[in-house]
């Protein structure tokens, strides 16, 4: 091929090629071409040690992390990597590798903390390193040694061919006394507690309206039915121990139901899966019988322990149901796979069944097998509903106010987020929504 023809082809190709390729081709031979047209090439600014390197205690933690930060460098690009090294011995090492990442990632803005606790900027890289993970420490002695140690850190920038290490800096990780990111949670909880307490104090002065809960209205019918049939009533407190709030709620319902059962002189059976729950329920039942004016009808074996094993407990209760054919069964509290095993057997023996659970994944099983189901927070409202104690009823109004606030917040959030997308202020909306985020 002639030289002129070759020149023409090259020129034509250059004219048709994208601007980046044209620029690369225009460079004198022997010089590195840039990898991206928009981004300045790493080669254009040679690697140097990172500037403004600082090691600090990571705020709002238990003293298990250090925060390493430095200025964004002109050579930041995907091909250049930062390696953060840590040492707990001396400024000269030995070094443990804390993190490796491309130099155009991990800025202060990328740390998931809210705007009131953290300044989100893109002008500094920042990485929070867990000391136990970085040094591979998993024993108590090692953890204790790390706790009071000064931690040294250095950052090495590397593009695969050359490296630039920074001088070492030091920090001391300390424990903090308040988690500022959780301030929103703290304020909302405090506000909600105040609302509940205000309604409780207000309930003493005037009657509060209470919406009907059909499942709890049916309690009288269930007890009446058992009395007429001369069959026992079963009350189950769930699969969790007394340290669970749903078990506490179910034991409070037991107290109210036991009062009515004592008045009707019907047989009550409360099989337990935890001895501690049994002990608490024994006290509650005894008091309920006493308040109903029937302390003589109380028997110690109303509450009895079976076993902590899930399916052994289920088999035992199912066996008793089949043999004794209870007229009514109450399933209150938290349940797992045994929910359907219990309620289906209850349905097969013809018992009227009332369930109340905050285990949302078991609620469908209760819906299809039980006559009435208390959904979620109705379990917590049941004690107040049955007792009609004005003080307890006040909490229901507090709960409803809390729910109204959440509904309003969701509604406002949906409108804001939609407007943010439509009118291009998404960033502002995201910042505002941090107020409702959990940290």
């Amino acid at each position, binding site marked *: 091929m002639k030289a002129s023809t070759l020149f023409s082809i090259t020129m034509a190709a250059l004219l048709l090629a994208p601007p980046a390729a044209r620029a690369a081709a225009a460079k004198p031979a022997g010089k590195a071409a840039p990898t991206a047209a928009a981004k300045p090439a790493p080669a254009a600014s040679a690697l140097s040690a990172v500037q403004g390197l600082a090691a600090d205690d990571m705020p709002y933690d238990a003293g298990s992390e250090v925060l390493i930060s430095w200025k964004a460098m002109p050579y930041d690009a995907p091909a250049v990597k930062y390696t953060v090294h840590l040492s707990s011995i001396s400024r000269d090492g030995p070094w443990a590798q804390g993190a490796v990442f491309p130099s155009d990632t991990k800025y202060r803005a990328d740390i998931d903390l809210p705007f009131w606790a953290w300044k989100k900027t893109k002008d500094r890289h920042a990485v929070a390193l867990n000391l136990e993970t970085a040094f591979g420490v998993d024993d108590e002695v090692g953890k204790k040694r790390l706790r009071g140690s000064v931690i040294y850190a250095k950052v090495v920038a590397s593009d695969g061919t050359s490296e630039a290490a920074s001088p070492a800096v030091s920090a001391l990780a300390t424990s903090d006394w308040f988690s500022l990111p959780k301030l929103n949670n703290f304020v909302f909880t405090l506000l909600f*507690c105040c609302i509940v307490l205000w309604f409780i104090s207000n309930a003493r002065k005037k009657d509060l309206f209470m919406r009907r809960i059909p499942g709890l209205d049916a309690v009288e019918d269930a007890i009446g039915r058992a009395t007429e049939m001369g069959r026992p009533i079963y009350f189950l407190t769930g699969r969790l121990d007394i340290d669970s709030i749903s078990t506490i709620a179910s034991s409070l319902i037991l107290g109210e139901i036991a009062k009515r059962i004592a008045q009707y002189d019907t047989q009550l059976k409360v099989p337990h899966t935890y001895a501690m729950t049994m002990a608490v329920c024994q006290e509650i039942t005894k008091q309920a019988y006493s308040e109903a004016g029937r302390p003589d009808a109380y028997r110690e074996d109303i509450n009895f322990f079976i076993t902590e094993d899930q399916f052994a407990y289920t088999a035992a209760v199912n066996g008793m149901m089949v043999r004794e054919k209870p007229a009514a069964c109450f399933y209150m509290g938290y349940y797992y796979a045994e929910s359907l095993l219990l309620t289906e057997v209850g349905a097969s023996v013809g018992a009227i069944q009332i369930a109340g659970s905050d285990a949302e994944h078991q609620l469908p099983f209760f819906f299809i097998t039980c006559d009435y189901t208390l959904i979620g927070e109705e379990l*917590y409202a049941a004690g107040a509903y049955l007792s009609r104690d004005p003080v307890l009823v006040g909490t229901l109004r507090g709960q409803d106010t809390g729910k109204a606030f959440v509904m309003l917040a969701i509604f406002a959030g949906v409108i804001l987020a939609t407007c943010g997308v439509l009118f291009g202020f998404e960033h502002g909306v995201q910042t505002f929504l941090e107020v409702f985020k959990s940290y």
Partner: protein
Amino acid sequence: MVFAKKTLPLIVCFVMGTLVAIQYYVPHRLSQSFIEELSHWEIIIAAFAFFLGLVSVMQVHIGKLRRRPPGWGFSLFLFAGIIIGVATGFISRGKQISETGAMTPFGWMYNNMLNPLQGTMFCLLGFYIVSAAYRAFKVRSKEAAVLLMVAVLFIFARVPLGQYLWESVWGSTLPWQLHQIVEWIMNTPAKAAGRGILIGVSLGAVATSVKIIAGIERQYMGGKD
């Protein structure tokens, strides 16, 4: 006496309840140690409470053996189980595999008796789901009709035959595939309902906790007076 039985538990409940609630906002190491220490206390108390449970089991079943009501033989079986279980546990030193690598009697009982029995109970779920579904899917109301419709969609989406039939009937005439419809139901309306329940549960739990910590609800210790 009233102080020890009523006032002291209320003070303990208020102090500990408040400290545990505050602990959530305090990341300090002391705060973490405090909660760890509390969990140790709970384990110790639960271990003591287990003896209460054992006494309860004994009382119920010894009573049955004395009175001999129908089904008293099960109580005999329970005592045999307890004695054999405890004896093999002691012989095997609580281990399922011995130092030589052989299965201990305790391990044999666990693997060949307890595990299959638990599996059997769990397997009953399959049959119970069918019988419960049969009752639930009787179209007696609009809600039951919706339940049935969604259930049929889910069943079809979860089995290859259902997907095959869907494609044979609709082909590519519909803009969505069956699995996409089911995923949408799971991720949008079902998840929204689940979250609604969860929000209510959380508020209810906080309100109940406030009542107990403030001493407004005292039924758990046997009443108000």
